[in-house]
Structure formats: structure tokens, C-alpha cells
């Protein structure tokens, strides 16, 4: 990825992320979220993370945001009169948000940058990711399935109409 392309995509990403946060209509927020997630997938592709980029589009933009849109549709949310907090809080939050970004960037600049070790052959391919996942991270991987099972049961139990 060339630096020019990076800057262009980064500007687009920040703009669509801001749209998610400030747009009054939740449906438009969700659509902007899809755009943000897809742009992040492009960054992942540029960072040799092909499988992660693919999962980002399928799982995040595909499944999770559709779930959001589905709930918005179910609740029939419209543009609200009081979508935002009070002006004082918004102003304070904006200043605080900028300060937080500056703080993180400053902290990162002061931290010692990790030594670049170069990329081994086959980096980011599905085989390399799967090898890590099924050897070093086998236990967390299996626990993940348990977590998803609990989440499914919990979601059904919560969303079910009380009989």
C-alpha cells in the first residue's frame, strides 16, 4: 500500500467513522459502519492479513451489522429529536475525545518502537493462521465455541416473548 493511498483511505475511514457517531438516523449510522468496516478490511489486506480481512467483511459487515439493522427495523426507530446529549456534554466530550487521541499518539511516540523483524514466508495466509490457532491457541479456540453457545442460548432466552 503506497503512503498516498493510505492517507486517502485513512481520511475516508475517519469521515465514515464520524458519520456513524454524529448522524441522527440510526439506519444511516449502521450503513456508515458497514463502510468503515470494509475500509478497515482494505487496510488489513495491505497488512498481509488476507483471512482477517475476509472475516472482517463476512462476520462484521455481513453478520453483525445486519443484526444491528434488523433490531433497528424491529424497533422501528426514526430520527429522534433528542439523539444527542446536551450541548455542554457534547462540547466537553469533543474536547475530551481530541485529548484522548493526542494522549494515545503521544504515548505511542514515546514508547520504543518494536524492532521490525521482516515478514516470514507465507505470513498472513490461512495455513499460517490455522497452524497457530490449532496448536498454540487450541484451548482458547475451544473455549470460544463454548462462549458462542452461551451467547446463542442467552440471546434466545432474553429476546423470547415472556409466555
Amino acid at each position, binding site marked *: *500500500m*503506497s*503512503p498516498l493511498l493510505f492517507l486517502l483511505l*485513512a481520511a475516508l*475511514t*475517519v469521515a465514515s*467513522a464520524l458519520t*456513524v*457517531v454524529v448522524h441522527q438516523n440510526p439506519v444511516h449510522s*449502521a450503513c456508515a*459502519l458497514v463502510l468503515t468496516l470494509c475500509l*478497515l478490511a482494505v*487496510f488489513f489486506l*495491505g*497488512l498481509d492479513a488476507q483471512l*482477517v480481512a475476509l*472475516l472482517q467483511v463476512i*462476520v*462484521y459487515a455481513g*453478520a*453483525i451489522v445486519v443484526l444491528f439493522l434488523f*433490531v*433497528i427495523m*424491529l*424497533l422501528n*426507530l426514526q430520527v429522534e429529536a*433528542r*439523539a*444527542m*446529549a446536551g450541548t455542554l*456534554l*457534547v462540547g466537553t*466530550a469533543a474536547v*475530551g475525545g*481530541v485529548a*484522548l*487521541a493526542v494522549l494515545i*499518539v503521544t504515548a*505511542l*511516540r514515546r514508547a520504543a518502537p*518494536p524492532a521490525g*523483524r*521482516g*515478514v*516470514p514466508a507465507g*505470513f*498472513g495466509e490461512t495455513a499460517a493462521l490455522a*497452524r*497457530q490457532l490449532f496448536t*498454540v*491457541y487450541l484451548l*482458547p479456540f475451544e473455549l*470460544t465455541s463454548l*462462549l*458462542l453457545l*452461551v*451467547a446463542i442460548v442467552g*440471546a434466545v432466552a*432474553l429476546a423470547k*416473548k415472556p409466555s
Partner: protein
Amino acid sequence: MTPPLAWYLGLSAVLFAIGVLGVLIRRNVIVIFMAIELMLNAVNLSFVALARSLGSMDGQVIVFFVMTVAAAEAAVGLAIILSMFRNRETTNADELATLKW
């Protein structure tokens, strides 16, 4: 020539701050939820950029786990919002203040 690691980390920091901003200024719980997803994704970008820079796959594996947890969180959270809406007819965080001191 590829952009340096610091650029990716900077973009990640900005996206995270936007997510925090969203949680603070929005009153609709669903939009607050989307802002949380934005923060999770900002951290994912850091993980992938550092994995690339260190030449280690571990960062990408952790992103995989973050996505799984985000999916579980979205399913349960939206179910909670649904049942909350059924009881209170609102998704405004200011009106859901029964537990507030």
C-alpha cells in the same frame, strides 16, 4: 514503499477516540453499541499492524478472538436492548435510569 507502523497506530488511536466520543455524546443505546464496535475495530487495526511489524501471527489470531467476542456481545446486547424496549418503549439511555442513584 509501505506506510510506517506509526501511521497505522495513529489511525487506530483516532478511530478509538471517535468511538469513545460516540459513547459519550449519543443517547440511543443502539448507536452507543455501534460506537463500541468502532472501538473494537480500532484495536484490531493496531493488532494487525503490530503483527505485521513484528513478523508474528499472534496478533492476527487475537483479532480472530476479538471478532468472536464481538459477535457474542452483539447478539446478547441486542437481545437485551430488545427486551428493554419491550418493557420500557424506549432506547434512550437518559430514560433508562432506574438504577441511577
